[in-house]
């Protein structure tokens, strides 16, 4: 995708399983301003489809990138922006 963005906040939910990654992301999201970018680091293999589903249902959530990083363990990085809702 090669999107340019700067990360406002990083949320580490490595090791946590459903529903906590999305639940905690929402909590962090509430504290952000429009245009801010949240990076969520998860090891839950369900994180990608779940974050897609979250973004699909919540207008203010837009996925900028989903990157899989190998770092001893697989980390599913979800980069989401808080966008302006009309």
């Amino acid at each position, binding site marked *: 995708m090669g999107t340019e963005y700067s990360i406002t906040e990083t949320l580490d939910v490595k*090791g*946590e*399983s*459903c*529903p*906590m990654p*999305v*639940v905690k*992301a*929402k*909590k962090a999201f509430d504290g952000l301003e429009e245009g801010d970018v949240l990076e969520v680091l998860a090891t839950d293999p369900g994180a990608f489809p779940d974050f897609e589903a*979250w973004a699909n*249902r*919540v207008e203010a959530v837009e996925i900028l990138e989903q990157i899989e990083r190998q770092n001893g363990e697989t980390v599913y990085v979800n980069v989401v922006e808080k966008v302006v809702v009309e």
Partner: protein
Amino acid sequence: MSTDAPAADGDAGSEPTMADQIEELREELAEVKAAVGDDQKRMVIISTKGTLDMAYPPLILASTAAAFGWDVTIFHTFWGLDILHKEKTKGLKLSAVGNPSLPMPNLLAAIPGMDSMATRMMKSRIEKNKTATIQELIDVCLESGVELQACQMTQDLMGYGEDDFIDGVTVGVGAATAIDRMADADVQLLV
């Protein structure tokens, strides 16, 4: 609701003009829009089971739907009440009998102590996998505005008093309340 004939305020007997008809349709559309209301999504779950495994799905779905910004109600009835019970919620057990997914035949599962053993196995897995506990999920639900309701009739049937429930639980509601919520909900589930 406006049911006035357009002719009433014009000259009696004449056909309503196109402008009058358009105006009337506008008003009706506004009323319909107001009735259909907002885009607020709603979910209602009826939670009837008090075993450890059956306590999870309603709480997981509710906390997730709340993260979606949905308005969520869980109506607890029968053994579902145990999930909200201050003491019993700490001791929810897995049932070994009638659960063919457990690695023990039913004949053995019926032996006293087997439920506790199965529960201990599950709890150690929950801890190892860092799965949220029932208590954590209840906290998340209450924090995120999920309404946890306790059915009055079954509360009486089980001999539970208002003070037996976790703080934040809505007590003293019945089937009519559940149906009222379900009628406006986009998702309704019985667990």
